[in-house]
Structures are given as C-alpha cells and as structure tokens.
C-alpha cells in the first residue's frame, strides 16, 4: 500500500561541504493532499524538492514517487509528476509556444490544442508568440504552471509558486492551486508564507535549518495554539480596567496600541455587552488568527540561543 504514496521520502540528507542543507528529512504526501512545506529562507525547501525531482543526488536517504525512485528509475519515476524549483525557467530566445512545444516533445506529446488550452488558462495566449526572454517574473511563473500541467500530472511539486507575484497574481495562483487540487491533483508546495499554507493546505511539514520540526495536519497544529483575541479602542485604559475585572478573561496585555487577551467565545460575547454598557467605544474585537505565525516563529527560531555563534549568524542573515 505504501508504494501508492505520491511522495514518500525517508531520511533524506544533503551535505554541501560543511553545511548540512537537509538533515534526515522524512516526507509523506498522500493522495489528494495539498501539502505545505513551510520554512524560512535557507531552511532546505528547494534542496529537498530538487532531490525529489531527481535533480540532485541525496547524500543519504531514499525517495519514492508513486513507488519509484527518481535516482534509480530515472525519468520513468517522474511519470505523472511535474513541477518546478526556484522559479520556472525557459529558453529565453524561444517564444512561449515554442518552449511549450519543446517540452511537450520531451514528454512524447505535441498536442497543440492542449498547449493553446493551457496558455488560455494562465492568460498568456495573447503573448504566446513573444520570446520568453522578455517575460516578466509573473508571466514566467504562470508559464511554469502551464508547462507543468502539460504533463497532465497526478502530483505537482511547486517551489514557492507565489513568490514575487503581485497581490492579484498571488490570489490567481492560489485560486489555481485550489482548483487543481479540486480536480484531484496532489500538490506539494513549499512556502515561507503562513497565510498561504493556512489557506491552501491540509497538511504541513515545517522545516528549519534542514530539519523537520513539525509534520502533520494543519488543524492539529492550530489546535495546539492558544486562541486569543485582540481589542482596539480609543479609550484603551478604561477598556483595560474593564477587561481585568471581567470574568473569563485572562492574560491581558497591551501590544501596539491594542489589548490582547485569552478567552472563550462566550466570555467575549459577554465582554462586548459590558463594553457597550460602560460606553467604551470599540474599533476592533477580533480573534487572533495569527497564532500559527507565532507558532511558526517559535518553532523556526525558538532554539536560537545555541551559543553566540548561532546568534551572530542569524544577526548577519
């Protein structure tokens, strides 16, 4: 059964000289997952994905994509797999259409109608006869998606697909990923954006300095985070006094001109009534959904105090 897994990597290690870029990483992606591979800059996300795609040889460990090892089976192991690492690249002196036709030929297919369909999908049909050398970053990114979909993949590996896109481009890219997942494509996407992973992914692995510090369901991770609320008011002092006196409200702190506290929903409802009765104006009373962010920071930077050297390194970076 395990050989049916889209991705199953065990004990992946990649060493560059002195640097252990990826350190005993296990990754399991199941059919239908939208799997988020989360980590800060230099954590080893791209290096991991390169190993999965057979581009670099792991120093140690094994990889199976639908049961086949790309470092043993070669291109055959990539049947049904598509994606890109570190931004898609193309031949700058060929047009987008020609680039796609070249890649289709490398896949044993040359369906022009499919190419047109995909250019339409990524909104590049009008620009398809322009050389890719003149493409903007966002256009290249979209063409990269088209190039990946040309293979009609069952598994998509995307390395920071929204990096460098403008807000509209990010939204479109996320919509597309969601749509593809809806069509049954398994997706593994790396990111350093929590909101993105939160929005798209059902499962996550968090990597820090080459090591996985969390792997599992996103929901479980969120559940471990304490739920908090944030209150904003023009009369912060009075509001704070009221909060401290209110039952069911704890850990009240002032942060950046607003108040943070822990409470369950009932207590918050009661609080809003109390605030109204005390004629204290409220400009915002919102649940703290950024708790994943805090969790993430805690996990990826928590062990920072490993001695001065480590601290200095971080400071330079």
């Amino acid at each position, binding site marked *: 059964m395990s050989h049916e897994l889209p991705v199953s990597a065990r004990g992946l290690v990649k060493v560059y000289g002195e640097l252990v870029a990826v350190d005993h990483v296990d990754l399991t992606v199941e059919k239908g997952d939208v799997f988020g591979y989360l980590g800060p800059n230099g954590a080893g996300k791209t*290096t991991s994905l*390169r190993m999965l*795609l*057979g*581009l*670099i*040889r792991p120093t140690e460990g094994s990889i199976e994509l639908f049961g086949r090892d790309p470092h043993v089976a*070669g*291109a055959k192991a*990539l*049947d049904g*797999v*598509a*994606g*890109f*690492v*570190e931004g*898609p*690249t*193309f*031949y*700058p*002196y*060929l047009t987008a259409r*020609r680039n796609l036709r*070249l*890649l289709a*030929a*490398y*896949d*044993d297919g040359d369906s022009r109608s499919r190419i047109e369909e995909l250019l339409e999908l990524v909104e590049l049909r009008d620009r398809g006869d322009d050389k890719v050398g003149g493409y903007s970053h966002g256009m290249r990114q979209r063409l990269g998606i088209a*190039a990946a979909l040309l*293979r009609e993949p069952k598994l998509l590996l995307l390395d920071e697909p929204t990096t460098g896109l403008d807000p509209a481009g990010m939204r479109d890219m996320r919509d597309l990923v969601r749509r593809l997942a809806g069509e049954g494509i398994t997706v593994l996407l790396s990111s350093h954006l929590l909101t993105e992973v939160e929005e798209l992914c059902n499962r996550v692995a968090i990597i820090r300095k080459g090591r996985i510090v969390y792997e599992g369901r996103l929901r479980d991770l969120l559940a471990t985070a304490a739920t908090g609320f944030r209150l904003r008011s023009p009369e912060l002092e009075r509001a704070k006094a009221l909060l401290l006196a209110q039952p069911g409200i704890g850990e009240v702190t002032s942060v950046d001109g607003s108040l943070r506290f822990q409470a369950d929903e009932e207590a918050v409802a009661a609080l809003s009534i109390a605030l109204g009765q005390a004629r204290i104006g409220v400009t915002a009373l919102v649940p703290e959904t950024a708790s994943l962010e805090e969790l993430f920071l805690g996990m990826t930077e928590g062990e920072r105090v490993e001695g001065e050297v480590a601290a200095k390194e971080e400071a330079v970076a």
Partner: protein
Amino acid sequence: MIAAVGKVYEWELAKLLAQKRTYLGLISAILVPIVFVVVLVLQTGGPNDVPLGRYIRDTGLAAPFVVLFFMSIWGLPLITALVAGDIVAAESHNDTLKTILTRSRDRGQVFAGKVLAVLTYTFVAVFAMGLVGLLAGTIAWGFHPLTSLSGTKVSGGHGFGLLVASLAVYFLPLAGIAAFGLLLSTVTRNSAASVVGSLMFALLMQLLGVLPGTESIRPYLLGTQFEAWHGFLRTPADWVPVIRALWVCALYISIPVAAAYLVFLRRDVASQ
C-alpha cells in the same frame, strides 16, 4: 529509445537555429572562402607554399582545398568551439537543465541529442565552407581539371568527388575539437571558458606538431589529422593517413564524449 533521442536532437537543432552564435559560426564559415577568393582576384601572387596553392587560379576546385589548409589552424576550430563549448553551458547559464530534466527524457537521451546536434553543426560548417569555396573559386576561375599533389591531372568530376571525400575526413579532427568543447562545456558550465579552452586545445595540438622532438607522436596528434585528406589527392590514393585519421579521431572523439556523458549523468543540477 531512438525515437526519444531523435526528438531531443530535433529540438536541439531548433534551439541552435534560434541562437545568434550558430549564425555567427556558419556565416564565418561561408564568408572566409568568399573573402579569400575575392582578395586573390583583386591581387596578383598567391599562396604558393601551401598544398595546391600554386594552382589556385587554374581551377575553382583548388580554392576549397587551400581554404581548408588555412582554416585548420584556428578558424574552423573556433567556429566549432563557439557552439560546442556552449551546448551544455548555455543550459547551465539559463538554468534550463532543471526544466528539461524533469520531463520524460533520461539524462542519457538528452546528452545524446546534444552530441548529435554539435556534430551536425560542425559537419554543416565544414561542408558549407568547402562548397562555398568551390562555388566562389569556380565563379572566379572556372571549373577545370585539378592538378593533384602527385602532379597528375584529375578531371573536374573526379576532383569534386575528392573534395567531398576530403571534407568528410577533415570533419573528423574537428569533431574531436567539438567533443573536447562539449566536455569543457559540461564540466565548467561556463560558455566563454569552454570556447576559449577548446580553442587553446586545438592550438596546442597544432603547436605540438611543429615543435622539434615531437616527430614520434606527430602522427597521433589531432592537428596532424587535418592533413589526412592529402592522401586522397595523390595518385594512387594514399590510404595510410586516411585510415590513421579514422581511428585516431575516433579516440579523440569518444574519450571526451564518454567523460562528458559520465559527468552529465551524475551531476547535481543546482543553482551555482
């Protein structure tokens, strides 16, 4: 397998045809014989101390042979290196290896397609130069019998056959330079370094051949094989240099190609 390599080959050619350096190389290969003939038409005197140089104005057939001689020193090696040194390095430069190596082609098939494309380019450059030289020479001096290196007269038709055979043999040492360029291109991942490096290799092979004390190894130097075609222009034909060129060049081609193949199969495709 063959169909798979064929597809890669086809697109490697398409890529070459979309790049300026390919045209730079091929146009140089065509311009050199034209300029050569034009200069000789405008001037008196000629290249009397090179093979067939004395007969340059007797027949257009002599022109391509004389051009071959001059171009062997660095002209054609440079034209060859220009593309051979770039064929893998350009993929590194554009970071496109990751794009094509994550499709359905094995690395070996991609590599084979590239080798074939480089050899095709080299072949076209040699024949374009030879045939344009013949055409230019014929326009200038007519298509008449050729005086062979043994002093006998060879009919025009026969002479043309000898030219084609000579170009084919002349292609072999150039293919050796192409193979060396391909190896550098794979190992250094740097186009300029590979072009310069292969040209240096070609010049070194020529230099070794003219230094004193190298007589014993001279027959096996790559540069020497550029003269193998002289064998065809003797009566009777002297097959010794031709046969030697065949196996010596086979080594100069296969060893770098095999080394490049192994590197290409194993290399990490990572940002540099």
